[in-house]
């Protein structure tokens, strides 16, 4: 029994570590899309900026905590820079510009070797409290740390969205003409939402780097953005609780399907299994969306409302 537990526990720890990182990542998107209605298809750019800034500063001798703060701040700052020219665009154009931006960031990571070390990536940076925590317990420690970070981000966001500030964001999502007719500076609120969402993504990027200990430009492909979208939609758009649950489900799907060939005999070679898993994940998501289109914590009655 203890043997079995010993085999399963690290496995569950891995799922929860990834889930907590991606939950933080997707909470940033949920603020932008779920509460403000901004279609950001370039969320991964801020994930990358946060991760790269932190580790690059750290390996050049900067203390870890300052590197993390800089990573988060720089991700937020890039949100600000991207927001100024784009937030006046209509929603679908914003989507196009943001996805382009994320690819530009990845190209820079790949090609500006003097700064980012190019395709070889970065490793050998510090991890938080790595000397204080014994190696065999490090992942458990990291999980506790990440859950604590997730909790802080969650409660901070909940407080924000339940405030009058959050009410203005929601009104922008519903129909931005109304808040501007009522004297709210819509552009400024969109910008604030994008800055905070991006800073949160940056924090998630830092967490990812600490866990996987090695990052390269391939870690930050556009698909990462869409994992965040899947998480938000799965959990129920505009529900932070749903976003956390969505992240756990997505990673349970990812990891759970690894062993599918042991349960159901499938006629695939091991190298084909990866693709097969994606099919299974897609199918599971489709079923969920068919039978619960509002997401897990979404409100069904909202789907029926009209303007």
């Amino acid at each position, binding site marked *: 029994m203890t043997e079995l537990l010993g085999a399963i526990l690290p496995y569950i720890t891995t799922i929860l570590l990834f889930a907590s990182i991606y939950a933080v990542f997707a909470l940033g998107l949920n603020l932008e899309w779920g509460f403000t209605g901004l279609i950001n298809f370039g969320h991964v750019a801020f994930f990358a900026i946060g991760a790269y800034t932190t580790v690059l500063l750290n390996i050049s001798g900067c203390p870890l905590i300052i590197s993390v703060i800089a990573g988060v701040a720089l991700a937020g700052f890039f949100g600000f820079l991207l927001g100024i020219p784009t937030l006046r665009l209509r929603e679908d154009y914003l989507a196009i510009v943001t996805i382009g931006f994320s690819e530009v960031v990845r190209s820079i990571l790949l090609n500006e070797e003097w700064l980012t070390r190019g395709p070889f990536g970065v490793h050998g940076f510090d991890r938080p409290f790595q000397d204080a925590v014994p190696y065999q317990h490090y992942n458990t420690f990291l999980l506790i740390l990440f859950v604590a970070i997730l909790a802080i981000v969650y409660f901070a966001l909940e*407080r*924000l969205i339940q*405030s*009058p*500030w959050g*009410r*203005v964001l*929601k*009104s922008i*999502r*519903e*129909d931005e*003409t*109304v*808040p*501007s*007719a*009522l*004297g*709210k*500076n*819509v552009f400024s609120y969109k910008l*604030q939402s994008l800055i905070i969402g991006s800073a949160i993504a940056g924090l998630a990027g830092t967490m990812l780097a600490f866990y996987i200990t090695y990052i390269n430009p391939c870690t930050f492909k556009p698909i990462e953005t869409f994992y965040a979208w899947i998480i938000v939609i799965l959990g129920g758009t*505009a529900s932070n609780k749903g976003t956390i649950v969505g992240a756990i489900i997505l990673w349970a799907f990812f990891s759970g399907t690894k062993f599918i060939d042991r349960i159901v005999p499938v006629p695939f070679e091991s190298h084909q299994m990866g693709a097969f898993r994606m099919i299974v994940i897609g199918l599971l998501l489709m079923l969920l969306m068919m039978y619960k289109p509002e997401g897990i914590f979404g409100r069904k*009655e*909202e789907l029926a*409302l*009209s*303007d």
Partner: protein
Amino acid sequence: MNILTARNLKKHFGGVKAVDGCSIDIESGTIVGLIGPNGAGKTTMFNLISGFERGSGEITFKGQRTDNLSPFKIARCGMVRTFQIPRALTKMSVLENLMLAPTMQRGERIWNVCLRRKKVLEQEQTIKEKSMGILEFFEIDDLRDEYAGALSGGQKKLLEMARAIAIDPSLMLLDEPFSGVNPTLSRKISGHIDELREGGMTFLIIEHDIPAVTKISDRIVVMNEGRVMTEGKPEEIKRRKDVLDVYLGGEG
């Protein structure tokens, strides 16, 4: 004293001269009706005055030039408008729709939410009580917790007016407040407008329901083809044959 003066407003869309040299004065504390056939440029006038569209000409509101300000700044000066098709914030409750409105709320600033929680909550309580008062005035207080998107067309009209009043405007621009509303509700809305005017509010009302708008207005402005055709007291306008012709599209 004029609360609003617009001089020589123009707005062209390609070859279409939606508003073509329109001037209008609105005296403080009065109700002015803006009528005219479809395409006369009434809604474009509203858009120009409230800043949602840019054209040329001069607009002075409470002694301040507003023709270069963005809509939210104009709203903060105390001018609010409603829309022809009511814009309810669908997935927000009726009460939330109202509580959104007051300008310069402390809790709208992110650092106040983080650092001055108590003061924000205090103000929130005041805003809530005030919003409930307005909902009671419009007799839709029993709908406070409903989604705004679940309301009927008439209720949405009332909600839109209620929300506009919640910012304490000195001038309200109402775009067809009586259209698609049953006679009872229409009388009720007239009553509310009258009562608010008694309290010192000024109104500019676009309306196609001529009997309703002439009954309530102190002055009527008739627009046609982007220009002010005539203006005067409701009784005079009702007798004018050329106004009738414009509406019926005939030569008389």
